[in-house]
């Protein structure tokens, strides 16, 4: 099918349509909005994307957002390297850090197991997690995935996978709103959930 739009317009629509949560209709709307606004405004967006892509990367150790090779948390040698808190996304680290209850390190899976979305264990940073457990003499892994179905399934998967590989595997205590996201839990609740974590046997 040939496009009704000029090639650059169609390309812009296609690129926008690849973003999460942006359907073809929204992609079209955003594209025409960008064509309409002042050139300076559109360029600021383009520059911001380039800046972020150039300067911000994922931490080569924990896959948190980082400037340079390693994130601030991995670079901080006051943090206990023998405890790993496994989360789904970098934003979940922010939620856990806000509790001020946790002094260990993190590992970001970059998602949760969800066959509907085509995400299996091989799409997550699980291989890298296993390598860290091997190399960093980790004593405890805290499974801090979201308290929804996919998060629970991912936690169960990991607890089975890590059995025998780490002395202690724990899961944050229930009490978090079921079906919710970690990032929406308030500090006090999440802090208590961390404190009350239990050893899991999968």
């Amino acid at each position, binding site marked *: 099918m040939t496009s009704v739009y000029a090639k650059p317009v169609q390309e812009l629509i296609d690129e926008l349509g690849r973003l999460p949560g942006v359907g073809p209709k929204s992609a079209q709307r955003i594209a025409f909005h960008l064509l309409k606004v002042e050139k300076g405004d559109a360029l600021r967006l383009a520059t911001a994307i380039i800046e972020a892509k150039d300067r911000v990367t994922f931490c080569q150790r924990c896959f948190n957002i980082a400037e340079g090779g390693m994130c601030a948390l991995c670079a901080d040698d006051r943090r206990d390297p023998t405890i790993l808190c496994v989360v789904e996304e970098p934003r979940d680290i922010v939620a856990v850090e806000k509790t001020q209850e946790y002094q260990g390190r993190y590992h970001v899976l970059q998602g949760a197991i969800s066959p509907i979305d085509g995400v*299996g*264990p091989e799409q997550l940073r699980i291989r890298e997690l296993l390598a860290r457990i091997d190399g960093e003499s980790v004593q405890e892994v805290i499974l801090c995935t979201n308290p929804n179905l996919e998060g*629970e399934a991912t936690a*169960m*998967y990991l607890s*089975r*996978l890590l059995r025998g590989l780490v002395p202690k595997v724990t899961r944050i205590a229930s009490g978090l709103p079921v079906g919710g996201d970690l990032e929406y839990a308030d500090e006090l609740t999440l802090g208590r959930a961390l404190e009350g974590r239990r050893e899991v046997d999968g």
Partner: protein
Amino acid sequence: MRLDRVWLQDVRSYATADIELSPRLTVLLGDNGEGKTNVLEAIGWLATLASFRGAPTESMIRQGANSAIIRAEGEREGRALLIETELVFSGRNRVLLNRQPLKRARDLLGVLRVTVFAPDDLDLVKGGPAGRRRYLDEALVASHPRYDALQSEVDKVLKQRNALLKGAQGRLQEEAAFTLDVWDAKLVESGGRLAEARQHLLDRLHPLLAQTYDAVANRPAEVTARYVADWADAGLAQALVTSRRDDVRRGVSTTGPHRDDIDLRIGGLPARTHASQGEQRSLALALRLAAHHVITDVTGSAPVLLLDDVFSELDPDRSDALLENLPVGQTLLTSASGLPPKATPDRILIVRDGRITLG
């Protein structure tokens, strides 16, 4: 729970209608196609946010109108109840409860409860297992709202499990098998709980079902209802192991609570295949009434009973028997064929030409 008055504006055949209801039995009389059922449908919408005819909500808006308004006034748990809703073509339907706007229409669920019996309910007996599972699940949620979350969890687990099976394209790699173990465990956990809850509910329904059937059937007969799960003997965990090969080959979950059924029998014979249409209809009505009794019992207040065209296949004696055995609480009933001889409804309304008048 009681509705005293219902106002409709631009709802299906009605430009406006102002309907006063009896706290006991109100009968809507009128020829077919005059719009009796539309009144029950509108009241039902307030309870479930959906048409019990399975029609899209937009289709309840009168032709040419932009929106429809359903307003109902009554009593719930000793306090005044006022529900006001505006149904729109696109966007959100607006709902006010006691003059307070609700953030989400869904928050209205559970405020008003209804039991509906409609001619389509013959499918409960005659149709496939899905309708019978829905019957149990709806009664579960009506008596214990928390089962809503369990049901949607089971649905989600099955969707994830099926996506994994489908993705395997007939051959399960070792890695995927390990992931499937996790979804199996989730299905055992939530699916097992759902099946157990359905089983308990059916145990409770069973004696009531026999009783109500005797009241509304032409010939008394022994009625039995048994929960059937092909995995019950082995247990769900073992059944999933056994069926895994099949599941992978076919790319779907071939066993679990989503395949269960109720085995309904009249006089020892399967009702779906061996009963007459009259018996099947009596049994369908008995199923609805039995659930109504259980929900009344568990929640401590009777849902509003909406009986659509219930006399059409009951003979006059059985129709009288039904009216004599009406459960406590409020009933609305439609009929195109008049009333049985001994009927003494508290209020008769005549529906004609889009208008409702006192009979």
